[in-house]
């Protein structure tokens, strides 16, 4: 923890999934807190529970045991509507495979979260153009995802996650499909946005390029926190 106000509190988190006739335990008693404006990463090998933890923090999944509080919301007790409301208003997602809406233009993809929030047209236009400027894609606003490179697609995904200026952005392996140059470009963009907008960015990654940018690293191993290190301070 960096000593800032806590926006994520996790206490004794256990997550089990049914598997065949038995169960698979993905997370085994995780206890963590994250503060506002952190640039942190869940690091570990495949199957260590990074994505599962990210999904629970993002209210896409619920804990089997334990307690997770995100921005004042207890994840395990939220109704589907309340969880959707939390995601809509306060959480941005960035995915490994971008998950852009293929038939929509770059502009429409970035505009989508604002449509859900019912912002008016001129407000949407201004916010979308700001977000595209952050990621350097103003000239591609009319392009569709199939016409973009992988790096450009991920920059659109970042713009989509940041456009509503959420307090929390969750990025699951955001550079896994990108080359080194694009990865660094993306990470620099995210770092800048973290500084300028004070958005908490939480990564799930095992990419060394990402690890190099993180200010805090939580090593997960077999569903447990192995190490929690503050590696770099501004």
């Amino acid at each position: 923890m960096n000593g800032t106000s806590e926006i994520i509190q996790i206490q004794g988190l256990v997550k089990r999934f049914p598997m065949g006739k038995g169960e698979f335990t993905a997370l085994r008693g995780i206890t963590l807190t994250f503060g506002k404006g952190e640039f942190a990463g869940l690091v570990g090998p495949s199957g260590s529970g990074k994505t599962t933890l990210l999904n629970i923090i993002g209210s896409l999944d619920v804990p089997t045991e334990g307690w997770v509080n995100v921005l004042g919301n207890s994840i395990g007790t939220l109704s589907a509507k309340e969880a959707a409301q939390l995601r809509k208003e306060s959480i941005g997602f960035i995915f490994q495979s971008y998950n852009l809406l293929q038939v929509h233009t770059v502009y429409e993809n970035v505009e989508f979260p604002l449509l859900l929030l019912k912002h008016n047209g001129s407000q949407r236009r201004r916010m979308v153009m700001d977000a595209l400027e952050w990621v350097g894609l103003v000239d591609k606003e009319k392009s569709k995802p199939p016409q973009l490179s992988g790096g450009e697609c991920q920059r659109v995904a970042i713009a989509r996650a940041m456009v509503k200026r959420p307090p929390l952005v969750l990025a699951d392996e955001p550079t896994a499909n990108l080359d080194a140059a694009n990865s660094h470009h993306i990470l620099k963009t995210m770092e800048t946005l973290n500084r300028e907008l004070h958005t908490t960015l939480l990564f799930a990654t095992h990419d060394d390029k990402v690890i190099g940018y993180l200010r805090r690293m939580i090593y997960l191993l077999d569903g447990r926190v192995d190490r929690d290190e503050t590696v770099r301070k501004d």
Partner: protein
Amino acid sequence: MLLALRLAVRNLIGAGLRTWLNALVLSFSFVVIIWLKGIMVGWDHQAKNDMTDYEIGGGQYWHHLYDPYDPLSLSDSHAPVPSHVKDEIQAGDMEPVLVVPGHIFPRGRMQSVVIKGINPAQTIWKLPTGELDADTDAIPAMIGAVMANGTRLGQGDRVMIRWRDTNGTFDAAQILITAVFSSNVPSAEAGQVYVPLERLRKMAVMHDQATILTFRDGRSQRPEIEGWILKTKAELTRQVDDMIKAKTVGQSIFYGVLLLLAMLAIFDTQVLSIFRRQKEIGTYIALGYTRKEVVGLFTVEGAMHAVLAAFVATLYGLPFLAWQAKAGWTIPMEASEFGMAMAQTLYPVYTVGLVVSTALLVTLATAVVSYVPSRRIARMNPTDALRGKLQ
């Protein structure tokens, strides 16, 4: 809802050819259903108009013993014309018809007929009764095209006719066919021989008598007449209504099959869509949609096919339907063989109700078919959906 509509339009347009192929198939259902129903409505209108013009006028009074389906009732179903309708008859707004059973002998064969005595100067029906006012040594008579075809009689032919008078005495004379008419109303033609009313009254010794009194104006309230049964136009055309209803039920099966084919395409598209767009579904949920809202979005998207189909149907269906309303549809076999009032060429009539109800039917069916596979989304795990993992 507005957002769902907006997204649905974007997604559908984005899906390209697949969307337009579905819309085309669905539009075919639109056009065919409207056309077939239009034919039914047109047939109904035409049949009733033809019956009015050639048989029932604005309605009728029947002698209380008259039963057109019981030939044995004909001998006794006549009575003097009631005195209080004579002014109406004088004014030409009511026409008495005397019905007498008889036989004709075309080419040596004997055929039962109904001899109808009718006023040659009448103006209620479109029957060419003026042709009965002929100067001839035989009895001038008129028959319908159905009768002419069956007996191979034509204009100018003579044939022996036999009847029984009111005393039960058989008599016979020659008739001269002065006119053959075509009415599209088989019951006005088959087995019917029309002769001048006064001539038949003399032949049957039934002075001033009638079996049927047909009046012109069917709108006003008609009084009851003792010994006569009032048959309104609605009652007399009920047979047409029943037949149209029966036909409509039969046609509904056809619509059903047609709609089923279109719905199958929509269903298939929806299933494929949900299967292929799992990542997108997960993304919608991650961005703040509930699973129920995504179900709604996919349902609206599927149902929007009906809106696009209506648009496509307008492009090619409107000219086709307009052309049909003008040119009509000619039945490829002899219409008179159906035994019902039916013109050889039917002109479809399209009402606002018909178009709106068809559009609602197709849209509703499309919405239901879109909803059924979309329910699967509600059971999806969003984290698996995000990874595009098959569920």
